[in-house]
């Protein structure tokens, strides 16, 4: 049986299997069609219908169930997540698993299209070490992403020692696609 305990391991392995079968386009289609529109249809339904309230209802229990160490900041205009210990990237790092070039892209791969459907855009950074942050705003809101500590105070992941390390930092600005990023 294919289990959920080591799901992140075979999920990551699947990205590379699909890439070898059909290239990058097949992987991004998989994140949208299989994950966003099928596996995560409960999240898609909640967030497209209820916006910020749906984000609270989805990510509240889900991040807890997955064992994430994270902080959530919600105002009338932005939904922010500071991920201090990503449970899935952490699983891969602890077990030495890497087949696909950038596992972290899968989150924007399904969340990005979902946010587009719901009328939101995403500012996001991930450091490939299990830390990232997200800010979701309505697409018509041109507000720039917050500065470090501005929205989530001391819980801002960007204030962690080691936030910027040797691994490249991927940055998304007002994005809804996994390829809408710059790496530095």
């Amino acid at each position, binding site marked *: 049986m294919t289990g*959920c305990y080591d799901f992140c391991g075979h999920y990551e392995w699947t990205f590379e299997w699909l890439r070898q079968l059909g290239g990058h386009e097949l992987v991004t289609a998989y994140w949208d069609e299989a994950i966003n529109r099928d*596996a*995560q249809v409960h999240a898609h339904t909640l967030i497209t219908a209820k916006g910020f309230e749906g984000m609270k209802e989805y990510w509240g229990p889900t991040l807890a169930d997955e064992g994430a160490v994270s902080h959530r900041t919600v105002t009338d205009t932005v939904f922010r997540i500071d991920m201090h210990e990503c449970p899935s990237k952490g699983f891969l790092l602890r077990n030495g698993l890497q087949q696909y070039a950038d596992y972290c892209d899968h989150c924007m791969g399904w969340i990005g299209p979902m946010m587009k459907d719901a009328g939101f855009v995403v500012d996001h950074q991930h450091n490939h070490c299990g830390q990232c942050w997200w800010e979701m705003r309505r697409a018509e809101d041109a507000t720039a992403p917050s500065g470090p500590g501005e929205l989530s105070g001391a819980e801002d992941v960007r204030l962690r020692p080691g936030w910027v390390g040797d691994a490249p930092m991927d940055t998304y600005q007002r994005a809804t696609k996994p390829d809408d990023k710059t790496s530095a």
Partner: protein
Amino acid sequence: MTTSAAPLPYTDTKPHGHADFYFAINATFRFILTRFGLDTLRRYWRDMGTNYHKPVSERWLQGGLPAVAAHWRAFFEAEPGAEVEVIEASDEVRLEVRTCPMIKHLREHQREIVPCLCQHCYYVSEAMAAPAGLTVRISGGNGACTQRFIRQSQNEPGQQLDQIKEAA
């Protein structure tokens, strides 16, 4: 033969997996099946067994049937909602799956289950077992089944896929 102290090659800090990941496993099978057909889906399952699960095969090769039993006991202990008895005999390890956790969770959440889902247990496990000189036979499915891990040298008749039920 010795059994590895850690029966599962990949471990998490949590004792159990997150059951909603079953949604993604089912959706992955549907995506491959819809786009490429059953032969490609079976290749995906075999490749997963051969490649991703290679460390399990190595444990089974080293530890034999006791390692197979230890693996499945630890595996189902970590799968939420599983009710599985692992029976270890001299010539086989038999899994009596009374409640398949994946089928249970998919049903509880009214998810459309890929009809051939239960075949994946055969194709993945057979690919895991073969390098260790073992083979698997499955009967039942759709929420409860029997899986037997036996030595290839026992020359039992091959798996009949019609012995594996469609899931719904």
